[in-house]
């Protein structure tokens, strides 16, 4: 590891051993990938949203997520200690190295799909970051403290729209219902943890995702009820994003996102 200040050094376990640096790096990068991919998706609405106020709102949401990604990538790079900064991690990793959940890489679709996707993600990440503020890793706790307030607004914004789309016109209700059906199979992956992440949970660094299920269910159920939308039936959940196995959508998105940096790798402005 580089000669970093003590805030970046993982806390030692009671046995005296350090949590696995590789595992911590993987974990932080996954959080960053979630934020960056969703942030980039939202930025694709810029200039194309159904109304001016919503165009600015979506851009704000995108910037929140990209800001979170930057902080997380910077920390991940320090943990790894191989000189990779946020740009190298964001722009120079291929699809298979990206470990975001499949939900965030799904195309924007129509406005209903974007709001349903945002609700599903934010209803999870809001309580997640709340819990993460108690992490034994001080840097993660600090990042979480900032992100919590942002995610609170994301939940509120997405929920208000899902309610109005669901309890709206025939067309808006149909689109919202279709979006729910389409995206539901990607929501299960939010709660997945592999052995590495479970170890970090045991160390008090990461958050137990499964434990957030009741809260996520409560938020989603409340919003869907007010939106007069039916909660989709239980089903097999898509998975694989955390291991770099992505849907056909991530590749083209990354290509577009990374092309400028790859064409001019050392450009600054």
């Amino acid at each position: 590891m580089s000669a970093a200040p003590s805030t970046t050094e993982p806390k030692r376990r009671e046995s005296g051993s350090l949590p696995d640096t590789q595992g911590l790096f993987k974990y932080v990068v996954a959080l960053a990938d979630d934020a960056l991919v969703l942030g980039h998706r939202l930025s694709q609405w810029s200039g194309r949203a159904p109304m001016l106020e919503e165009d600015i709102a979506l851009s704000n949401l995108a910037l929140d997520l990209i800001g979170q990604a930057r902080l997380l990538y910077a920390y991940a790079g320090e943990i790894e200690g191989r000189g990779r900064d946020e740009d190298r991690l964001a722009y120079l990793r291929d699809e298979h190295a990206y470990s975001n959940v499949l939900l965030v890489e799904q195309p924007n679709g129509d406005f209903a799909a974007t709001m349903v996707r945002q609700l599903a993600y934010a209803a999870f990440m809001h309580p997640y970051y709340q819990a993460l503020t108690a992490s034994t890793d001080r840097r993660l706790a600090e990042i979480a403290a900032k992100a919590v307030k942002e995610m609170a607004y994301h939940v509120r914004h997405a929920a208000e729209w899902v309610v109005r789309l669901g309890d709206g016109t025939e067309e808006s209700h149909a689109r919202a219902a279709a979006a729910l059906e389409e995206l539901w199979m990607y929501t299960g992956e939010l709660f997945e943890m592999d052995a590495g992440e479970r170890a970090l949970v045991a160390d008090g660094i990461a958050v137990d995702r499964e434990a957030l299920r009741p809260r996520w269910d409560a938020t989603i159920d409340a919003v869907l009820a007010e939106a007069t939308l039916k909660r989709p039936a239980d089903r097999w959940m898509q998975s694989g994003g955390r291991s770099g196995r992505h849907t056909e959508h991530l590749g083209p998105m990354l290509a577009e996102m990374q092309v400028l940096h790859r064409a001019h790798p050392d450009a600054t402005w």
Partner: protein
Amino acid sequence: MPETPMPLWEVFIRNRSGLPHKHAGSVHAADATLALQAARDVYTRRGEAVSIWVVPSAAITASDPAEKGELFEPTASKIYRHPTFYKVPDEVGHM
């Protein structure tokens, strides 16, 4: 299907210095909750606000610019209405 036009709302913002809410602009929104959100997203991006008011533009009654003369010019010659004709004793300090 004819669309109902989306209402216009006037946005007033109080900043951190605590001075009264100032008019910041307007937003289109379907209802009050979304109007508040739109105002937050459009007009408070640079930390300007601690408080937002949104008011339907239709609720605002404004003076007619053509009546400026009869409404406002008479006051120009009534200097006895200004609180400047007494001396504040030094012990009172700043008023």
